[in-house]
């Protein structure tokens, strides 16, 4: 019997990451119930359907919350302190973790509109969001 070697199928997370590496922010949308989501999954979390498609985000989003690290739990960030991490909601609905560009100290930015801006870090384009529009 001959042995067939199949190319390993990529997971939704790998596909999502590959798009990011290509400077495209994508998310999934269910074809059964229209739900849109991140992070990448194999089934729609709302109706459990596996019939979904990739869509590209417009890059418009809103700040849900943010924090400022004064401790480097991840040693790669020891030289970056203090640095911010934020949760944003894309205009299309999905939420994601990111960093805010141009955050001023003492400013409450919850609810502010932000725009996608890729920045190179750790040898990859990271999808960050810029506070005061382009």
């Amino acid at each position, binding site marked *: 019997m001959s042995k067939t070697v199949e190319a390993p199928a990529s997971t939704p997370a790998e596909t999502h990451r590959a798009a990011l590496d290509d400077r495209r922010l994508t998310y999934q949308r269910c074809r059964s119930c229209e739900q849109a989501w991140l992070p990448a999954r194999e089934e729609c979390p709302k109706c459990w359907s596996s019939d979904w498609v990739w869509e590209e985000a417009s890059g418009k989003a809103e700040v849900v919350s943010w924090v400022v690290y004064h401790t480097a*739990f991840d040693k790669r960030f020891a030289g970056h302190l203090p640095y911010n991490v934020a949760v944003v909601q894309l205009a299309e609905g999905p939420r994601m973790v990111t960093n805010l560009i141009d955050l001023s100290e003492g400013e409450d930015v919850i609810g502010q509109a932000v725009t996608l801006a890729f920045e190179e870090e750790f040898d990859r384009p990271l999808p960050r969001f810029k506070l005061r529009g382009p």
Partner: protein
Amino acid sequence: MRGKAVIAGIGQTAFGKVPGRSTISLNIEACRKAVADAGIEKGAVDALLVKVPTSRVEMMYGQTLAEAMQLRPRFGGVFDQGGASNISMIAIAAMAIEAGQCEVALVSLADNPRTGSRHAYEKVWGDDADFGWSSVVAGYAMIARRYAHDYGNIDDVNAAIAIAARKHGAANPNAQLKLPLTRDMYDQSPWVVEPLRRDDCCLVSDGAAAVVVMSAERARKLGIKAPVPILGFGQGNTSDAVPLREDLTTTMAGGSAKTAFAMAGLKPKDIDVAQIYDCFTITVLMTLEAYGFTPKGRLRDFIEEGGFEVGGKLPLNTSGGLLSETGMPGLQLVLEGVRQMRGTSTSQVPGARNCIVSNQGGIMHTHSTLILGQ
């Protein structure tokens, strides 16, 4: 099921740095003391429920512990809900006893992140690690920031929660941190992940605690000296990771308490003392509001009405909580609830008849509630 099961005995190890001890060893010490406190023989124990150590997750941990104790439990194992597991396991034990599955259950927890591994507490969050998204404290900080935006300044109430816990901890000879906290010290406490300060954050601790659960009827037959009735319990699981929660300031804690209050036939106003899971001050604030002690955003009103110390509006965390007694994830709060109902706390609330205890896990992912009486 109100009052059908009791906590018949409690046991604990030293808290803080307990080097050179495995979690198995710590669990056995707590179980040995809980069984001795109940005044029963080891042979009476026919169920063993244990929370997997947070600092290092192991498969089949319940069986490893049972082997080390030469127990062959009719009922038992690990229930994993993070810090909410403890109260959930007490509830499961009570239900299993009521269903005839077992008669005398040990519920135990040991953890040693202080001298063992802290990996679980400082982990980076998968694909988001390259943004610097790491640690448990940052998840709570993300919620705290949003809470303050939606409901106003939280410094006063968080400071009051921390100061009360530290005052009660200072009176507890078994507490890991016996240093009382002043408002000035709190305000000068350094940021860990803003908006949370070092004094908003629980301790990192080694130690173990255990309780013996049995039916009230069996406790009577065995002549248990100080059985504490379980009046109500409940749980609720928020499940979503923090970034995905539609509303960052709403969890399933309210549903957990609703179930427990309904079972107990009680309301928040009937509660004399509370042991509220204080991994971070924001957790206490959101738990008490979700439980219905005040409307959302109004817990600060309690400060003017005497606050959270013994003699105040709602005395809480009377052994020092996770902020002062031990950062161990949760079962120690049940032990203090039992001591309050027995009248033996080092910060006893005079005449306390009902105590509510909260446990929770992850970053407000899971929640469980226990109401104890007399």
